[in-house]
Structure formats: C-alpha cells, structure tokens
C-alpha cells in the first residue's frame, strides 16, 4: 500500500511538472462550459439541474481521457524508465494501480474545477444537490472506466499516438454499445440475451442511470468490475510485452 502511495504521488506530481496538466484542465473546463451553456442550453431550459452539463461528459471523456492515458505506459516504455520502475522492489499490480490512481485523481481534480457550474445553478434556482452529487460520482466512475481502458492500451505500444487512437476507438465502442442505433443492428437477429449483454456493457447506460440520481449498486459494481478487469489486463499486457 505504501508503494502504491509513493508511486501515486510521483505520478500525480509528474502531471503538473509539464504543461500537459494545465492544458488539459483548461481545455476540459472550456469545453465543458461551452457544451453546457450553448449546446445544452442550461439557461434556456429554465430548470435547476445539471443534466445538460453531465450529458456531454461521455463525449468529452471520449477524447480527453485517452489524451491522459496515452502516456501512462507508452512513455515509460519509450524512455526506458519501465525497466527502472519494474526493477524497484514493487509488484506489477502496485505499479499499475499507483499509476491508475494518479491519473484518476488528476481527472477528479479537473472535474472538481467545474464547481462554478454547480454554484451557478444553486444561485439561480434550487436544484436537488443529491442528484448533482450522484452525477459527479457517475462522471468520475465513467472517467475511471475510460482511464483503465486507456492505461491497458497504452501498455501495448511505445507510441503515444497509437495508444491515443486505439483507446479512443475502444472507448467509443463501449460508449456506443448502449445506443438504440447500435442495438437495433443486433435486435433483428441476435437473441435478446445478447442484445441485453451488449447494452449492459455500455458506459452510457450505467452513467445515465447514475446521473439521474439513482445510485444503484449494479452500476457501481459495473464500473468497479470494468476498472478491475482492464487494470488486470494491463498488468498481463506489461508482463507479456516487457521484452519489446
């Protein structure tokens, strides 16, 4: 546990040692704000909630999370520090978890900085803050899912660009699988069980459920399992590809 914390601190500090962190946070906030107010029509709707704000999070994360995760292992591999890291007395799982938690904490910081939106709706009206809190929880869990996928994929390659594109595609798949458009492709021929399974794999379905204010244990378990599975795969991938 101690080693996870040591690694976590180093990784988190490394985000802020380069302009990456600041560029990311600024872009995230600008996009989140623009989408909420212009496309989501936060004012025009005349309702005191943050639905227009959270609706766009899956799409924001789709592009921005791979931008964070792409460097997680690809850079270690490219600069050779992976050899250093894995010959220090830490286990593979500690390394994977430490790096993941740092990236997740970083997105949590970016997410937390959207608090002016929350202040705005509280100033203008009387929203259900419980629903908003649930929305933040759901958003953070979804970011964790995306990050775990991205982390695993960035371990496959030493090229950050490849890691970015591949993560984006895989994340896109996990988002889309809940869309009626995609599901209707399967509905005509596949058994209902398969269609349900595909829909059940979707980030969107689970995120929407949580962001409506209903924190169902199943949705939490889904994201928990999703993160655990991809991080485990991450450790396996590193073990397999260490020699390259």
């Amino acid at each position, binding site marked *: 546990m*101690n*080693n996870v914390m*040591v*690694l976590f601190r*180093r990784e988190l*500090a*490394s985000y802020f*040692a*380069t302009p990456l962190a600041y560029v990311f946070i600024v872009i995230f906030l600008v996009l989140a704000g623009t989408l909420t107010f212009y496309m989501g029509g936060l004012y025009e709707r005349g309702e005191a909630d943050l639905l227009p704000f959270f609706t766009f999070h899956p799409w924001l994360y789709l592009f921005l999370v791979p931008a964070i995760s792409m460097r997680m292992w690809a850079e270690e591999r490219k*600069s*050779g*520090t992976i*050899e*250093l890291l*894995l*010959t*220090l*007395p*830490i*286990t593979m799982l500690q390394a994977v978890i430490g790096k993941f938690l740092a990236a997740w904490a970083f997105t949590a910081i970016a997410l937390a900085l959207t608090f002016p939106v929350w202040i705005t709706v509280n100033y203008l009206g009387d929203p259900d803050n419980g629903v908003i809190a649930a929305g933040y929880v759901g958003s953070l869990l979804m970011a964790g899912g995306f990050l775990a996928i991205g982390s695993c994929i960035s371990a496959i390659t030493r090229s950050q660009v490849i890691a970015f594109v591949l993560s984006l595609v895989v994340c896109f798949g996990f988002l889309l699988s809940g869309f009626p458009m995609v599901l209707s492709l399967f509905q005509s021929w596949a058994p209902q069980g398969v269609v349900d399974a595909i829909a059940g794999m979707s980030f969107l379905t689970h995120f929407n459920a949580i962001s409506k204010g209903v924190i169902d244990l199943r949705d939490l378990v889904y994201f928990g399992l999703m993160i655990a599975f991809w991080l485990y795969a991450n450790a396996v991938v590193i*073990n397999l590809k*260490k*020699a390259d």
Partner: protein
Amino acid sequence: MIETQSLSKHYGSLTAVDDLSFSVGSGEVLGFLGPNGAGKSTTMKMIAGFLTPTSGTASVCGYDVVDDALKAKQCTGYLPEGAPAYAEMTPKQFLNFVADVRGLQGDLRRQRLSEVHERLHLGKVWDRPIETLSKGFKRRVGLAQAILHDPKVLILDEPTDGLDPNQKHEVRSLISDMSQDKIIIVSTHILEEVHAVCNRAIIIAAGRILADDTPRALEARSRYHNAVRLRVAEQDKVAERLKALTEVASVEQDEDGALVALPANNSLPYPAIAALIAEKGWQVDELAVESGRLDEVFRTITNVAGSRT
C-alpha cells in the same frame, strides 16, 4: 552471491541467452563481455528481475528472482542501459522517490542521500530537471539511483557508454571503491575497462559462455602475451636478427610502425632481445613487454564461436 543455473531466454524462435550457468561471490567485479546482441543485456535484465527467464533460474543473495522477486530486488541495485530516469524530475526529486520506494527513512535516508550527492558530484545539478542534464550527469544520476540503498549486488549495464574519458575514469574509480564488500556485474564492450575495474571476465556470444577467467589469464591466451615491442632506426635489419632468435616465433610490424617480436611456445623473449640490443648497440627508442591484447583474444574467441554456428 549471484547464481544462475541453465538460465535461458527465448524470443519466439530466437535464442538470446542459452543455458547460462555461473556464480559470482562477494568482492568479485565481473565484466560481462561480448559483441552486440550477445545476450549481455538480456542476462542482466533477468538477474535484475525485469525479464522472466524462459527456463532455468537465477538467484540474488539467495532469493530467486522470480519466486522471491521483491526480496531479490531489495538487495540489488540496477543501472539499465542508457540510464533511464524520469525526465521531468530533478535529481533531488528522483532520488527521493527511489528512497521512498526502497523504504529508506530517517537518518539512514539522509545519510545515503548525502552520500550519493557527494560521491557522484550531483551538487551542481541537484535541482535541475534531468532532461536538461548532460549525458555524463544523467549517467551519474542513474548510478546514484542504483547505489542509493547500498545494495549487496550491483548490476551495471554499460555504465560508461558515451562518457568522456574523465567521466569514464570517475565511474571506474567509483566501481573500484565499492567493490570490496559488493558483488558487481558490469557489462561493456570496451575492453580496457575490464582491465581497469574487473577481477573476472566472462565472454559471451550468441547467449553462451565462451570464456570465464581473470582479465590477466585471458590476456595470457593472446599470442602477444610476453611479446616484445620495440622501435628502432634500422627496422628491417633488426627484424631479421630478431627472427633468428629461438625464443622468437615471428616479427610483426604494428600499426604505428613499431616492431613486435612474438614469442615461440610460451617462451620469454625479452632477456634474449635485451642481450642482443646490448651486444649490437642498437639505438632503441622504445622497448616494452606486452602482457597480451584483450581485443585480439576477444576477437579470436568470439569469431571461433561465430564460425561454428
């Protein structure tokens, strides 16, 4: 104590390390020699616990590098090839991070940090990002990281590669200083380095051990062992005379023009040659007995292996 038994590593159909068995004891500085792609780095990576052996075992301080990986890593310091380090960190941050992971605390931690700070002359660059440092300083930061916890076993993959002569000298004397109570494995393809720091050398090629001996004994395998090198005015006439001696097998001209009299069947041609010089009264500008040429031994050994496979 480092011990490997039938250590092998395959990449698909390629055999990088083939059935390597050796053991290194305390106080030994083992030079790992071999042409590029001989399997030096792969072997070191397996001992350091980065790569998993395909078959065979390796143990460090009695801990198996696979089954007891954490304990083995605790007593090992490892400098990977090229001395990688987190570029955005300063040496101070980086070494503190390594100290954290190594679990160094309190007085011991302060003392170790200040020791590597002193010993590797990191004062000037202590607070500058590693990416802005020169190659020599980067290498020193890598070495500092490897010796920070005062490990029993040190594995250094090409520690002087790309350094200038002064820096090379510094690194070598550092290794020599530390050698008494440690086990050190150094890989290199610079042969003079073996002389300077190692008391044992293993030559490997194509993943196999071809020679395992002291540098001196390896030199003795050279046909230049005990050869006499001399520089005189009338080269041709002197060469003729030297050839006539029974102790001399043949006479060669070195790249720089000096004559080299090669000994016949392990004889010592020097006394006879010195006597001849005194008798004839030749004007000699240079006269030296060679201990042997490692590079020639290296070439002979690795080429024989190359032609066999």
